[in-house]
């Protein structure tokens, strides 16, 4: 037991180191880019980091981050709810799957620029539009993951559970869900990352507050340091979310597969 916990801890540390190494590598490449292109294309990493501290120190900077995070999560949660539900339904019923597919294709293929006006009309210029954009952009991903999970499940295990008259709900949670999750999870994690990017783009187009608005302002001012500072914030938060939220969830849901 102790040995086991120790090795888990070492694993965690090692994984932390690996990620850090990757991050440092990225900063090194950035520095090289800065030296090659000059600060009008890529500002010096240190300058951007300095700017980052300034931005976050401002009350408005911190508020922007919170607003964006709220929108990203709201859109993502909505998309998860609908995407998983529809994915499950489409997986279970072939007919409904055929009916759902074109909607997903529309969500997948229509560029956000085309949604923006509709979204502005429906939801106004505040939170609604970015949330809707995130929703519509991440929905197809989550849908596809859930659908595949349902389709690729072992039918034999369903049969077994049915033979024991295990109630439908338990059958879903204990027999199907663990299999679905192994397909859904990577899609879901990618969608979470994507939602950050999308919310920023939507804010850039439609909003007066949030990281996207900050980025839009930096762009108007051709302020590459601020631009990169905002981007570092987005990517940094994403890395934190991955490390703090996704990895533990992943370890939990996939534990049985990687038990050595």
């Amino acid at each position: 037991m102790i040995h086991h916990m120790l090795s888990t801890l070492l694993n965690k540390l090692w994984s932390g180191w690996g990620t850090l190494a990757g991050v440092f590598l990225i900063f090194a490449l950035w520095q090289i880019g800065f030296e090659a292109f000059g600060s009008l294309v890529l500002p010096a990493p240190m300058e951007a980091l300095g700017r980052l501290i300034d931005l976050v120190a401002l009350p408005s900077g911190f508020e922007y981050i919170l607003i964006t995070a709220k929108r990203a999560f709201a859109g993502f949660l909505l998309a998860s709810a609908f995407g998983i539900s529809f994915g499950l339904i489409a997986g279970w019923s072939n007919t409904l799957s055929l009916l759902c597919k074109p909607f997903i294709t529309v969500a997948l293929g229509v560029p956000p620029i085309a949604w923006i006006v509709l979204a502005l009309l429906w939801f106004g210029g505040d939170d609604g539009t970015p949330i809707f954009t995130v929703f519509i952009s991440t929905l197809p991903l989550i849908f596809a993951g859930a659908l595949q999970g349902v389709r690729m499940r072992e039918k034999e295990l369903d049969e077994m559970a049915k033979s024991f008259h295990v109630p439908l709900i338990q059958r879903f949670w204990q027999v199907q869900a663990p299999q679905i999750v192994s397909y859904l999870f990577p899609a879901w994690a990618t969608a979470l990352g994507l939602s950050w990017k999308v919310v920023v783009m939507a804010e850039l187009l439609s909003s007066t507050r949030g990281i996207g608005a900050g980025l839009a302002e930096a762009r108007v001012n051709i302020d590459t340091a601020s631009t990169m500072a905002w981007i570092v914030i987005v990517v940094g938060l994403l890395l934190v979310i991955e490390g703090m939220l996704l990895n533990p969830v992943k370890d939990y849901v996939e534990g049985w597969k990687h038990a050595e």
Partner: protein
Amino acid sequence: MPNETAPLLSVVPNTSVDPKPSALSVTVKDHRYHPLQQTLAPCTLELAKGEVVSIIGPSGCGKSTFLRIAAGLIEASEGKISNASKRAAILFQEHRLLPWKSLLNNISFGLQGQKLTKFQRMKKAREVAYAMGFSEDDLIKYPSELSGGMRQRGALARALAVEPDLLFLDEPFSALDIGRRRDLYRQVLHEVDQKQCSVLMVTHDVTEALALSDRVLIMAPDPGHFAKEYEVPLPRSERTRQNLMDLEAGLLADDRIASLFNMSNWEKLV
């Protein structure tokens, strides 16, 4: 060969001899997985309450298919089943434990069909697990960490835990050693004797079939049909290893059975 669907020996249902209430009655007229390939020819089975019936037959003849139809897992292309049992349980040929659940949770899994608290389920599962010879250490293992025989015992424990009144067993003891096997024979028979549980069992071990069953059905392939029905002449309590050897020898002395199993000159084992 596909035309040889007539039973080798005529099968006379012996309802007059055994007036016990019926637990299960299966009538398969035809079963095909592929439209052009008949897997089962007409087969009927009446299983009385508290009766143990075994099906033996060469590999791939359709035993598991018949069992799956009888258990209602798949539907025969043409046929009818009437099942009078309240609580049936199935042991699958390929264990079908849930890989993401520990052994104990796998055993208690089937109990969710019943109105029991979680605590009661766990208690029950633990009891059955101990009776199957599992140790405390084994209970927290995942199926991938179990030996072949342990998986099979786990699947059997899951089936027995629900206290079924009708048990379908598809080669339940095939991965077990002689000692464990005898323990489990006794446990299954205990269920039969105490709770009037009916058992339909598929096995390839003739001795095992003779030891446990009231009746043995012998299935022949291409397409699957019952070639012979054999009522074991001794009461279970009087069956000894030697007895059973003799019965087996008698059964295989029938030329058609011997040729079904390709057992000419069967005294030679290798």
